[in-house]
Structures are given as C-alpha cells and as structure tokens.
C-alpha cells in the first residue's frame, strides 16, 4: 500500500486561522461575518464572489485558500485528479434559516442557492477549477476514521491523486473548519495520513 500524507492543514476556530498548526491570522473582537471578512482581506486575493457567499461557503472557501497557499495543487495536478470530501453536523441549516426569514416578504434567490451543504464544495471547485470526485457527509460529530478510510480509498485506487477533506460547520455564531490536503508525495510539513494525526490537528485548536 503506498504511503499517503497530510501535506497541509488549515483549522479555523475561535476567530483564529491556523495553517500547519501555526497561527496565521487572528481577529478576536468581531462577530462571525466580520471575522470572515477580515480573514478574507488578510488573504489579499481579489475575488468579489466571496462577498455573495453564505457563512458556510465563506468559511470553507477561506480554509481552502489558506490550505492551498504555496502548495501548487493547480500546477501539479490535472483538474479531475483533485477531489473534495467534506462533512459537518448542521448541513446548510444556517443558510436555510436565513432564507426562510426572507420568504415572509421577498424570497431571496441568492440565499436559496446556499441552502445545500455541498455548495461550499462547488465554490472551492469554481475558484480552483477542481473537477474530481466530491462528496458531502452529514455526521453528528467529526469522524476522523471515516475521513481517513474514505479518502485513502479514493487516492489508493487512483480515482483521485490529491484530495481536500475534513469538516466545515456553521450554525449562527458557532463554527469550525478543519481541512486537510492529502497527497502521495511527502513534503517537509507532511505527516502520515492516520486517524490519530487527523484527530491531533483537529483537536489541537478546540480551545
């Protein structure tokens, strides 16, 4: 069985962005929308579509941008060799509720398009032109073992060469994102793609 590595990770939790376990951005005195906007500005990428996303897509998109920074995934892989497997507990409930609020007078089409959890995968794919297999699972809590097994299978069987996977969850002001970049080639930041390592990275920032 070939070795598979976590070559990059990004955790966003408690108003801090961590890349490979190092704090890269913090904005403690803000509500969630303000924090997400500040984290976007910090990236210094011009992508006006960001403003239109719901909080779940913004969070997942930001985590993916941080994850992919300096990793040259677009340059090193064909579009359909890059896949995304995400999970969360609250599906798109955050956007569902906001859309329902507008139904009373003028239902908003731009809110309705975010009332599915996998739209965040779509947003990451659109930004980076990733066309490989993608899936979104709803669990009560983060299941590192499931992610490890599911993604390993995709990579070992060459359905994908690289995969962005993990957890992106938002409900009101509560949120957490933990994304992992999985590749067959190691790099100086890499750790083995094991359940233990996934859990360590995920739990390290539960403060």
């Amino acid at each position, binding site marked *: 069985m070939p070795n598979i590595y976590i070559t990059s990770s990004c955790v966003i939790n408690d108003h801090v962005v961590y890349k490979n376990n190092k704090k890269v951005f913090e904005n403690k005195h803000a509500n969630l929308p303000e924090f997400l906007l500040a984290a976007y500005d910090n990236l210094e990428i*011009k992508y*006006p579509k960001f*403003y*239109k996303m719901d909080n779940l897509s913004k969070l997942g998109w930001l985590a993916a941008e941080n994850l992919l920074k300096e990793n040259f995934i677009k340059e090193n892989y064909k579009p359909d060799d890059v896949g995304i497997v995400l999970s969360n507990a609250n599906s798109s409930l955050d956007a569902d509720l906001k859309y329902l609020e507008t139904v009373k*007078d*003028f*239902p*908003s*089409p*731009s809110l309705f*398009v975010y009332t599915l959890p996998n739209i965040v995968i779509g947003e990451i794919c659109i930004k980076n032109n990733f066309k490989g297999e993608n899936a979104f699972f709803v669990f009560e809590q983060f299941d590192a073992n499931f992610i490890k097994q599911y993604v390993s299978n995709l990579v070992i069987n060459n359905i994908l060469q690289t995969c962005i996977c993990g957890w992106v969850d938002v409900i009101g002001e509560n949120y957490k994102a933990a994304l992992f970049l999985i590749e067959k080639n190691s790099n100086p930041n890499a750790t083995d793609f094991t359940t233990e390592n996934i859990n360590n990275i995920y739990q390290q920032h539960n403060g």
Partner: protein
Amino acid sequence: MDKLIADLKKQIVDQLNLQDIKPEDIGDDEPLFVEGLGLDSIDALELIVLLQQHYKIKLESADDGPKVFRTVKTMAEYITAHQPKNV
C-alpha cells in the same frame, strides 16, 4: 431620471453585495452582465426581486431579463414605463 439612476446604482450594490464597487463607479450605459460588472444568473434573479421590493414592478417572465437588465439606464427606463399608477 437622474435621481432614479443614482438610487438604482445604490440599490444594485446593496442587493447584490458588490462590496468592492461604489455606486458612482457604475456607468449609466455600462453592461451589467458578463463583460461589465460580471453579474450572473442569480444576480439577475435578485434584480427581479429588487424591482418588486423597491418599485412594486413584477417582471412576468425571466426571458425579459436580458433586455431590461442590460444597463442601469435600461432598468431606469423600464421602471419609468411600468411605474404602477397608484404609487
């Protein structure tokens, strides 16, 4: 008409979350879709909501969209021509 055009620009920026664009940056005759502001099909639907919300005008068919929403000026002309009489 000038006031209507200025109002519309502000409403468009608000409704479509164009946070990096100032209302005065939008040209009266600048195409809103694809090459100009780069709006997409969902934005078009939001503009339909905008017409209802602010001007009580109901665009009956989405097919009219491209014509009505070509520029801020065409929108203003459509609004003027279709203003409900009891408002």
